[in-house]
């Protein structure tokens, strides 16, 4: 631990009032002018934050919240007491591919319907998300309760479809092409029930430019390593590499294509941030491959041409 780290620890303790008074007074005396300035800033920030009142829910909001969670509690209790379905590979039994296709069709049809319903204008986006979430829960509940014979599934799909949609019809042909088509349909259905990304905000509501997440120099590896620890420690919630295109493009990142091209497809993205390398604007991506024995790979790209700089592996 170097002197700056020791000072930081001490300043945090002094700002937090964590030391006995006599010890605190002596410690504060030992600080140099810069450290005292830092301590003053820490105390000023804490004092300012202490003035903010904790937000509270209204009684109506609280009741709404509890009702929603109570409903989930009942659903959860019911599912826990129902016998778990057999985990055998039922889709390999003769005739079951048709059932899989039928279930996928049902999910796809209902999900596509919900997606269209979700596009209707609502008073505000909160209602839209609520409807989609509630409807998705209904879809899951219906799917769980859905019968497993193809004919019964077709009957259920016809009964629940609210919009005329051209979807893959249920079929009982147990061949590989049908299986893959059904799996792709189910995957598309799953993607369709995800809440949509909100349209871009008006310019006066846009967030101010964020400070760079990292500012490193390739000729100062020590600083680079410390910055990397901060980046790796908490950049993004993990998501599959297959979603990088959508997420990165949505957030204005530019170099994601190179990562997609050069990384194994079943990787998981753990880091995605903007910063500076040698003073130039850059992006960093961290992707964890499927092999748990391999370390996280960090890839830096300097803009605008997305020139790769270094990777940490």
């Amino acid at each position, binding site marked *: 631990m170097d002197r700056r*780290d020791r000072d*930081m*620890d001490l*300043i*945090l303790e002094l700002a937090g009032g964590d030391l006995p008074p006599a010890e605190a007074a002596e410690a504060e005396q030992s600080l140099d002018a*810069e450290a005292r*300035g830092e301590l*003053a*800033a*820490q105390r*000023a*920030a*804490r*004092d*300012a*934050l*202490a*003035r*903010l009142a*904790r*937000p*509270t*829910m209204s009684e109506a*909001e*609280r009741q*709404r*919240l*509890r009702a*929603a*969670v*109570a409903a*989930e*509690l009942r659903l*959860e*209790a019911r599912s826990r007491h129902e016998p778990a379905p057999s985990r055998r590979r039922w889709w390999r039994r003769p005739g079951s591919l048709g059932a899989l296709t039928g279930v996928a069709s049902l999910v796809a049809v209902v999900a596509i319907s919900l997606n269209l319903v979700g596009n209707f204008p609502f008073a*505000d986006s*909160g209602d839209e*998300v*609520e409807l989609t979430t509630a409807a998705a829960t209904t879809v899951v509940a219906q799917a769980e309760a859905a019968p497993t014979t193809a004919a019964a599934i077709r009957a259920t799909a016809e009964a629940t479809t609210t919009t005329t949609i051209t979807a893959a019809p249920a079929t009982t042909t147990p061949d590989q092409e049908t299986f893959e088509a059904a799996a792709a349909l189910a995957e598309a259905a799953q993607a369709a029930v*995800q*809440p949509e*990304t*909100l349209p*871009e905000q008006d310019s006066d*509501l846009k967030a*101010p430019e*964020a*400070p*760079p997440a*990292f*500012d490193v120099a390739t000729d100062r590896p020590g600083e680079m390593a410390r910055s990397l*620890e*901060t980046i790796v*420690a*908490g950049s*993004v*919630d993990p998501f599959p590499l297959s979603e990088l295109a959508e997420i990165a493009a*949505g957030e204005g990142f530019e170099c994601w294509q190179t990562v997609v091209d050069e990384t194994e497809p079943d990787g998981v993205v753990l880091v995605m941030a903007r*910063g*500076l390398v040698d003073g130039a604007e850059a992006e960093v991506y961290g992707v964890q491959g499927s092999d748990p024995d391999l370390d996280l790979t960090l890839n830096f790209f300097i803009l605008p041409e997305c020139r790769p700089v270094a990777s940490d592996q």
Partner: protein
Amino acid sequence: MRLPDSETDDRLLRRYLAGDGRAFDVLMERHENRVFAVSLRILRDREDALDATQETFVTVLRKAGRFQGRSAFSTWLYRVAVNTCYDLLRKKGRRATARLSPKHDPPDPSSADRLSSVEALPAIEDALARLPEAFRAAVILSDLEGLPLQEVAGILEVPLGTVKSRVFRGRRMLAAQLGNLSGARDYPKGNEHG
């Protein structure tokens, strides 16, 4: 039978898993305000915060059986809350910087201690909202929720040293942004790169 308020979170969770739904009601009652407060501070939108609060408790409810107790229940709960908020921010493709309250006039420049004036509160909120997400979450949990830094580290799943650095630098950025509201002190202003 009314459950005693003094039961620990872990005991309530075990009761819930044993089939006592009221135990989860008590857990929720105990933590809902804080989860909402943290969510609202991160998301800066009331409806989103309510959604995130609901989603947090639903997630905890569904995964309760897999909670292994390696950390405190509250640590796990707030970790789920923070991750739920980040997930919502990512899905909405935005950073939460909208004001919590209607726009206020600039602070009264004649006030001797501007930071203590009522007009300064929105500025403090704005300054907090402008922090990088990682710093903001650490400052919210540490300074607004009063959690020990060790617990904040557990919630954010980062080393203690990283939390200390985030809190330190987050407060420093706050002080720098608020520095123009107080003529009495000269806050350090410098390179505030994340």
